[in-house]
């Protein structure tokens, strides 16, 4: 019985001009988005790869110079694009793409791409993810709003039920019918997306991405299922199809237009971020005074005493090593603690804000889907932070290598020492690998639970439709 209802619903939908037109439009938009995404991805990736190798050349081709000068010279780290960013750009347009790695300082990422785009960008990034998050739910609404309400208006609902059709079977059949009609659009689209990913990826890169792609597919399938179920539930309970459409549109608008903005405001209010000025002022103060009352001067005095004792000498001049370099490394490590605390607190605030966004999925399932989609694409704040942390670890290692070379090869007070250029190669090239999927999902618990909850409620509500409103 369910299959027969589904088949009827499916044929009806395919014959419907509304479906054909919307499917053609959505399909075209999806193709355009994937094409533009793939092109943008390959362009930016090529730029970043070139720039990274140029930076490496600059670093290894430095002339003989004092290691500390080399540490000050430093290099730039450029954030790589993930392959799946061509499906979902996430926050990429709104985070800096480059960080300057130098001695003494952890610098914030600079150059948000949105800064160099026009205000048109603020209407939203046109990606496959946008289409799946905003347009497809709308398509579902347009397809499914008359499911029950329409039959009720035509009087066929009463007729159907009088034939002994179970309401549950009717609901399940209608849901399956709408779902298969969507499948006609989505299955080819999924293949198209996969093709775009394969074409854009450099050889073999797709292998590691399959789990992420599969999970993303599941996420969106769950999201569409929820919308189908919500649409049917509303259609089953409203008197006219007009009312059903109105309620569903209000839900769609609240979900996709109002919720993201309103939740940003709420999150910002509950967990405020400092102004950049306040942040830097507090950071500088701690760098200057030392954390928790450990003044840098006292630390240096202590370190000197320990070093003199270690080498069993009585004055700095008789040390076989360069105490300035040792003291600089000590300062470096003290500074790192300050950076860890301040940047840690900042990213912690972001994380709390993002949890608030995710919890918003209680009302708006989009919030869960958006978060999961970005997380899987590797374009969320967590992935940005992972890269920022990797760059910072690299900076610390680089500076440490320079300081150690200076300590071992020169004497205190001697800044004229020049290291052999072979030292530059002792610092390996900066390589970054995105965190594994398990780590990427660690912060997504609220989204997973809430989307799962929506799905469960949706499926149960369709399967357990016991009675239908008849007028």
């Amino acid at each position, binding site marked *: 019985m369910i299959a027969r209802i589904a088949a009827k619903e499916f044929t009806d939908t395919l014959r419907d001009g509304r479906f054909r037109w919307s499917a053609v439009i959505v399909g075209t*938009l999806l193709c355009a*988005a994937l094409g533009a995404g793939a092109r943008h991805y390959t362009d930016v990736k090529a730029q970043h790869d070139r720039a990274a190798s140029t930076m490496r050349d600059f670093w290894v081709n430095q002339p003989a110079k004092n290691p500390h000068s080399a540490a000050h010279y430093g290099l730039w780290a450029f954030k790589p694009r993930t392959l799946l960013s061509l499906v979902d750009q996430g926050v990429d347009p709104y985070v800096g793409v480059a960080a300057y790695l130098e001695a003494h300082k952890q610098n914030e990422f*600079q150059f948000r791409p949105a800064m160099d785009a026009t205000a048109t960008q603020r209407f939203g990034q*046109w990606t496959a993810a946008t289409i799946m998050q905003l347009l497809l739910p709308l398509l579902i609404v347009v397809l499914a709003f008359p499911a029950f309400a329409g039959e009720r208006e035509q009087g066929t609902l009463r007729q159907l039920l009088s034939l002994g059709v179970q309401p549950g079977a009717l609901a399940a059949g209608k849901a399956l019918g709408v779902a298969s009609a969507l499948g006609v659009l989505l299955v080819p689209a999924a293949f198209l997306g996969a093709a775009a990913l394969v074409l854009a990826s450099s050889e073999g890169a797709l292998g590691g991405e399959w789990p992420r792609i599969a999970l993303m597919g599941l996420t969106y399938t769950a999201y569409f299922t929820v919308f189908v179920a919500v649409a049917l539930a509303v259609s089953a309970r409203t008197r006219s199809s007009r009312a059903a459409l109105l309620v569903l549109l209000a839900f769609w608008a609240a979900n996709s237009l109002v919720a993201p903005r309103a939740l940003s405001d709420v999150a910002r209010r509950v967990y405020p971020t400092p102004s950049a000025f306040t942040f830097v002022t507090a950071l500088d103060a701690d760098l200057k005074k030392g954390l928790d009352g450990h003044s840098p001067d006292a630390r240096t005095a202590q370190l000197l005493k320990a070093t003199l004792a270690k080498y069993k000498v009585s004055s700095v001049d008789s040390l076989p090593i360069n105490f300035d370099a040792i003291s600089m490394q000590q300062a470096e490590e003290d500074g790192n603690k300050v950076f860890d605390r301040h940047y840690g607190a900042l990213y912690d605030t972001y994380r709390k804000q993002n949890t608030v966004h995710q919890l918003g999925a209680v009302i708006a399932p989009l919030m869960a889907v958006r978060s999961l989609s970005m997380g899987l694409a590797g374009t969320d704040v967590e992935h940005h932070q992972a890269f920022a942390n990797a760059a910072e670890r690299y900076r610390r290692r680089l500076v440490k290598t320079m300081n150690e070379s200076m300590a071992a090869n020169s004497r205190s007070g001697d800044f004229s020492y020049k290291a052999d250029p072979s030292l530059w190669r002792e610092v390996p090239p900066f390589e970054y690998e995105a965190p594994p999927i398990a780590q990427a999902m660690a912060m997504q618990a609220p989204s997973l639970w809430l989307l799962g909850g929506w799905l469960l409620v949706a499926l149960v509500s369709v399967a357990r439709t016991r009675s239908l409103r008849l007028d």
Partner: protein
Amino acid sequence: MLRFAAFEWRLLRADATLRLFGIVLTLLAGYALFNGTRWVGFQRETIATVQEEEQARLAEHQATIDRLAAGDSTGIKPWTNPAIPSVAGGTQATRYAVLPPAPLAAFAVGQSDLYPYYARVSTRTKQTFIVNDEIENPVNLMAGRFDVAFVVIYVLPLLILALSYNIVSAEREQGTLDLVLSQPVDARRVIGAKLLARIGVVLGVTLALLLVGTLAGGASLATPGALSRLALWAAIVSLYALFWFGVALAVNAAGKSSATNAVILLGAWLAVVVIIPSLYNVAVTTARPSPSRVELTTALRAATNEATEQGSVLLQKYYLDHPEMMAGGAPDMDNFAARSVAVQEAVESSMAPALADFDQRLVAQQALADRFRFVSPALVLQAALFDLSGTSVHRYRYFQGEVDRFHAAWRAWFFPRIFAKSTLSAADFRALPAFEFVEEPASVVVVRVMPAVVGLLLPTLLLAALASGGLRRLRR
């Protein structure tokens, strides 16, 4: 016709939809205004903090200079000595260039969350101080703000369509249309009256909210140009509202059922407000991609490497180019600070073409985005509202120009003193150049925004003509 409108008004007043319209719009606009005002307040606070820091720092360094003059130099190292011009001009005595929020900034956050609104100008290259992003969770930047501009662009059309999607079709469905048509009046006058009543309500509520918002938001209307900006804001929002009434009327004139009208109008809203703007963005960035900051950074580094290698040669060359910098007629080759200036200038002049090209590409992208924005009234409206609120890229570019001027003045003050190795006195400190922001003339903004009036009016008139034709056929 006014008599009909008065009747319609009585009918509307009895209808719950209207009350709902007023309540929803007031709530949303109120919340949006609250949000925008908070953001403006945050910027004002930051600016005040920044200026306090500058005052305190300058006072502290002046005290140090007094101390030095008295012969006490304890704890002062060469790189912290504010009496040395390169130290003072490079870090210690640097001053802020500040862009205060414009009078109507609380209405549209616009691009103000992306561009720096203050810069600590020094003798060093512009790149060292111009990148100065405000801290913000990128997810919040992506979502955008809930401000008045958002309510006007996205929500107002929806409310208008909800009020008028069945302005003709409902009459037909209730059977009253035939009754009206059988009377010796032009159907267009009756429908026109119905429309007029709705327009009156929507514009009345919207304009009242704007006015209350301006006063409640603390905008000072005494600021030069504030009134003309507000008047244009109101005019452009009204035109946008009229455009949507035009859409509703034109669709109704086609004579379809209310349900069909609703779906068509929803599609129109989606196309104008969501799809076309986003696709337009793709088209613009594909035709004129943003120049690459990453490539610029690499190029800058290459230029710096080259210049640093030939530092002393560059200093010699600098003296040749700027003979006025030679104190006593002979070049001072041991002046480290002077050498940095020479290297800096070499880097800047070798980078100038690349920077100019970068900037030119940004300008070309913006010009393209501006030129064809008329494809969607939402794009036209957004650009106009951002501009009138002083949160558009145009005002930030203007501010950048002012910063450049101040930077040049700052260098002009310090460079001769760096080359002369002079010692700064407390009096010198008091005479440091200061930044004063001169607002972009309102006339410039008005000229920039005027095409928007045409861009909104023209489609509205077209729709009105279309609707009029359709309604005349209704008669027959």
